């Protein structure tokens, strides 16, 4: 049995985002309300981190518990931690550190109604340079291998790579294969990929049949991505997506709504606490 390990303080989980910060991310995001891809992706990741920290709070007077180690690796003009402020330069931080050290508090549209709400922000948008995706996967692999050595029986790490284009430093398939060979006693690392688009409404979401994919770029992402564990299939189905037991964890031509939906499913873990 795999992907069943409860996440708790003795067995924290690990989630790492690889974020394309190349120049092309300065283009408009499909369905992003005029925002650039870099801006929209940073916003979605900040929102996911916010939910992740809240997931770690059991007793509000105690604050977040160490249920997760989280990383955001940017790749563009440089490859490294995308965190700012107190967490700058750190590739992996605990959910306690994350909760206590946002880069800033920003006003966002209130998701529950009118007006705005203040939300924490940990990363900011960047768009410059090339797309060194392989180097980012290399850094993620080295970091996660060390993490697994310390947490051999935890829920397997989750890596989510978000990009609008193709790697400029080589074929990413061998690097993603290496990542997927990393494993804890509860299963292999889950490698997911999101290809984001300037257009709205033509997303391919977690397909199970590579023969129906539109081009070789989509086929490459299919081959680079892990099969969704059973509980994620259930979550995706309950969110209205047409997925099945063979669905791979990737989205192609994803607009803003598809990216947000994918990250909600892809960062879910089994029971926490």
């Amino acid at each position, binding site marked *: 049995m795999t992907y069943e390990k*409860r996440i708790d303080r*003795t067995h924290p989980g690990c989630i790492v985002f690889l974020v394309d910060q190349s120049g092309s991310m300065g283009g408009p995001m499909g369905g992003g309300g005029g925002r650039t891809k870099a801006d929209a992706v940073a916003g979605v990741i900040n929102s996911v981190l916010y939910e992740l*920290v809240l997931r770690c*709070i*059991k007793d*509000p*007077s105690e604050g977040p518990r160490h249920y997760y180690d989280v990383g955001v690796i940017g790749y563009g003009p440089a490859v490294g931690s995308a965190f700012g402020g107190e967490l700058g330069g750190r590739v992996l931080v605990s959910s306690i550190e994350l909760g206590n050290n946002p880069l800033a508090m920003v006003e966002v549209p209130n998701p529950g109604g009118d007006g705005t709400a203040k939300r924490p922000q940990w990363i900011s948008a960047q768009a410059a340079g090339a797309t060194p995706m392989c180097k980012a996967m290399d850094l993620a692999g080295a970091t996660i291998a060390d993490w697994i050595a310390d947490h051999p029986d935890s829920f397997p790490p989750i890596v989510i790579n978000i990009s609008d284009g193709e790697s400029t430093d080589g074929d990413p398939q061998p690097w993603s294969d290496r990542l997927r060979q990393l494993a804890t006693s509860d299963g292999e690392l889950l490698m997911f990929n999101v290809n984001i688009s300037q257009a709205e409404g033509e997303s391919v979401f977690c397909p199970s049949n590579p023969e129906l994919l539109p081009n070789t770029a989509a086929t490459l992402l299919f081959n680079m991505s892990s099969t969704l564990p059973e509980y994620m299939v259930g979550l995706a189905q309950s969110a209205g997506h047409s997925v099945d037991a063979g669905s791979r964890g990737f989205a192609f031509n994803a607009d803003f709504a598809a990216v947000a939906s994918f990250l909600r499913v892809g960062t879910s873990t089994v*029971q926490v*606490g």
Partner: protein
Amino acid sequence: MRLVARAYATPKLGACWSDLEDACAYDEPRGRLAVADGASSSYQAGPWAQRLAAGYVEEPATATTFGAWVEVQRRAFPRATVDPTKWWAEEVALRGSYATLLGVQLTLEDGPARWDAVAVGDSCLFHVRAGRLLCSFPVEHPGDFTMTPPLVGSRDGEAPGPMVASGAIEVGDQILVMSDALAHWSLSVARTREEVWAFLGGLRSDTFGPFADDARLRGGLDDDDVTLLRCVVRP
């Protein structure tokens, strides 16, 4: 007739007792039993479950009084003190706490003996007579447990309507009330081994924990908090 009740609980593997998010309460003279299971994804799940279980034993709810009864529990539930400078303080206050509840009122005098139960969510009651299951409530089949059972929330708003059930009691009957993990395990095992009900009736305080740990490690029992509240009707 009189009621003899015993309660057993154990937290998740590797967790400490303070992490327990199940709660149970009983009052033998008044024939009241309750088990509540706090939702791990909510805040103060354990204390809210304790409030619901204790609240039922203090004043049992019925289908018609349930909404007002929940309001009483909400008012009696102490809110956590949160540092207002923390960014999560407001969000925590908005989201609230959630738990299942199963409450049973046994009537052993003044007419035919009976039990009446209310349930929100998947904590379960099993009525056992001479080692055979007479009634399973509110979940009857192991496949009917879900990841998102109905829950009673601590925030203002309409409470979910409870399911209700009742049954006639005889001397020697056992009423087993348990949180979802053990209920799921029991219904699964009972499909091929009806003697599971006699086995559960024989567990003691020194055998319950080792049984739960062993069943978890073998994979049959979900790694969750486990609570069993067992009562026997005596002459």
